[in-house]
């Protein structure tokens, strides 16, 4: 059997090289390069339609790129022939989709147990239940949320449940697609805090797509900016502010960008660790 991936041995968790994505005539990505370092929270920003979600889908193998290569922990999903090996890679990451994508016929606890059952069919039910219970607790859901069905949850709770399922296998890598979209400011701030906290506790590498400037300031170590079909800049927010690119300037120095920055300075949270 092939050697198992050991995420702690990698400095670069994700390496995207010369990625091209084309849908018919529409070119979404053209020669896009990106590196995500182990242990960092990388925020990915960009205008609507710049292909943030497509980038995420390319990395996790839901979208076969037209050209270019995507390596996660040194492996490329396209070229992995061995089922065992691709499963080993897949269990290294957890994905939280924008709408939560919870299985509507299962309860929250059962949703969390789906990946566990899939990868570790021999875990006994008692341990599965305990794992589900503490995951529910970790993501800050109320104690009675476990037996509830997704339809009975509020928007914020659905997001938290989605996060709990993404974390079910204790992945090294976490993908979040607009985690705070559709949440009220208080809920969004709490969610930002939760992501930061979980990333620190579990030593996660996080790939975070967002529109939310507050999220960027509160949680991200570095930010990658998608524009002109590629990543035009990657760096900490101060580094990005130093660049001349008009979109970046508009983004961070627009009215919303300024107020997020002011608010952030006022509360004194550190933008970088």
């Amino acid at each position, binding site marked *: 059997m092939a*050697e*198992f991936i*050991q995420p*702690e041995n990698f400095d670069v968790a994700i390496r995207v090289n010369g990625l091209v994505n084309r849908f018919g005539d529409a070119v979404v990505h053209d020669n896009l390069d990106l590196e995500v370092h182990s242990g960092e929270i990388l925020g990915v920003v960009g205008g609507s339609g710049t292909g943030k979600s497509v980038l995420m889908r390319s990395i996790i193998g839901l979208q076969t790129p037209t050209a270019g290569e995507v390596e996660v922990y040194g492996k490329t999903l396209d070229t992995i022939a061995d089922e065992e090996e691709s499963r080993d890679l897949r*269990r290294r990451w957890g994905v939280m989709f924008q709408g939560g994508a919870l299985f*509507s*016929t299962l*309860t929250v*606890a059962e949703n969390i147990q789906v990946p*566990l059952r899939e*990868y*570790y069919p021999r*875990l*006994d039910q008692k*341990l599965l*239940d*305990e*794992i*589900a*219970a*503490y*995951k*529910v*607790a*970790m993501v800050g859901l109320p*104690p*009675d949320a*476990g*037996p509830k069905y*997704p*339809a009975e949850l509020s928007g914020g709770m659905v997001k938290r449940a989605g996060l709990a399922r993404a*974390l079910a*296998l*204790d992945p090294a890598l976490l993908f979040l697609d607009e985690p705070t979209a559709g949440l009220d400011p208080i809920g969004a701030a709490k969610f930002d805090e939760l992501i930061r906290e979980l990333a*620190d*506790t*579990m*030593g996660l590498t996080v790939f975070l797509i967002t529109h939310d400037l507050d999220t960027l300031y509160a949680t991200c170590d570095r930010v990658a900016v998608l524009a002109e079909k590629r990543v035009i800049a990657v760096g900490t927010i101060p580094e990005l502010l130093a660049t001349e690119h008009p979109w970046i300037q508009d983004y961070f120095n627009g009215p919303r960008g300024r107020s997020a920055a002011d608010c952030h300075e006022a509360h004194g949270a550190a933008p970088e660790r």
Partner: protein
Amino acid sequence: MAAWADFEHSDGADGAEVRFSGRLTLARLGDLPARLEEVGPISTLDLSQIQRIDTVGAWIVTRAAAQHPAARIVGASDEAQRLLDALASDKSEYRVHADRRPVWVRMLEQLGTSSVAIWDELIGIIGFFGAMLVAVFTQIRARRRLRWNAIVTRFQTVGVDALPIIGLMSFLIGIVIAQQGAVQLEQFGLEVFTINLVGRASIRELGLLMTAIMVAGRSGSAFAAQIGTMKLTEEVDAMRTIGVSPMEAIVLPRVAASTLLMPLLGFYASICAIIGGGVFAWVGLEIPPLTYIQRLREIIPMTDFWAMLIKAPVFGVLIGVTGCYSGMQVRQNAEEVGRRTTAAVVAAIFLVIVLDAFFAVFFSSIGWN
């Protein structure tokens, strides 16, 4: 190769000293939890030798510590300590399963809820039909123009698009009836009565019945799914806020289309079935088409045709109303759309057949034999 999670223990005076080693992670856990359960009183849980730990490993350690109140956790790295702290608080109030009640209670409850649900459904469908009639009358009284555009669009999907499949199906049914009938009638040397069989059965019953089933499956389900999805995306609510009555804008055109088209489709289906029977009579029984048509004119009473024309719009209303009603009942989630769509088709076909039986008895009792 990464090391499996493991532990060894040595018995001390006040309990066992457990030393973990390897990767204390979900993937490398193996049978460690079961083995750990078997160890007697534990005094120390030593984490200094482990290579890695994740939340599951930390949970196993936390659980052991909770089971043996005397146990101390030692040698935890910063990383391990963070995980242990995160899991330290009491999780016993977190529930995973809904409370389970005895089987007989759940059976009774199921019986009760489904009885009430069926009753509610019946009341609901009658109420919906009433609301629709009210909408029709207000529309007539206020002399508002019908939404002909919407209705004609439905004509396309309910009627024109259904022509090929209904035609083919009826044609084949005609052949089957003729063929099966001929086999039986041949025994008496009465093959020629096959024409009676095909002609009367198609016009009076089968053409329309098969059409109703097809329309219920094609259009009744589509009504339910479309309206259900519109409910989910809040289009129906948006309509209400703008002041457009969903009953007028969504339901009436659909019900009107299915009502107006059923007689046409039913007649078309009957003709197709007769053609099918005719083809078989020509090829299989060597009855020439002209004789076939001549004979049909002699044996099919006009009342058969009227019976079909009376039944058809009723079936149309029924299919349209059950479809739209089911769609309007959708709440919550996408799964409900599927459930309601199935329910619409099943209810429509069931009701059509029940009503057809009533009509059959009614028509023969008024002498339309």
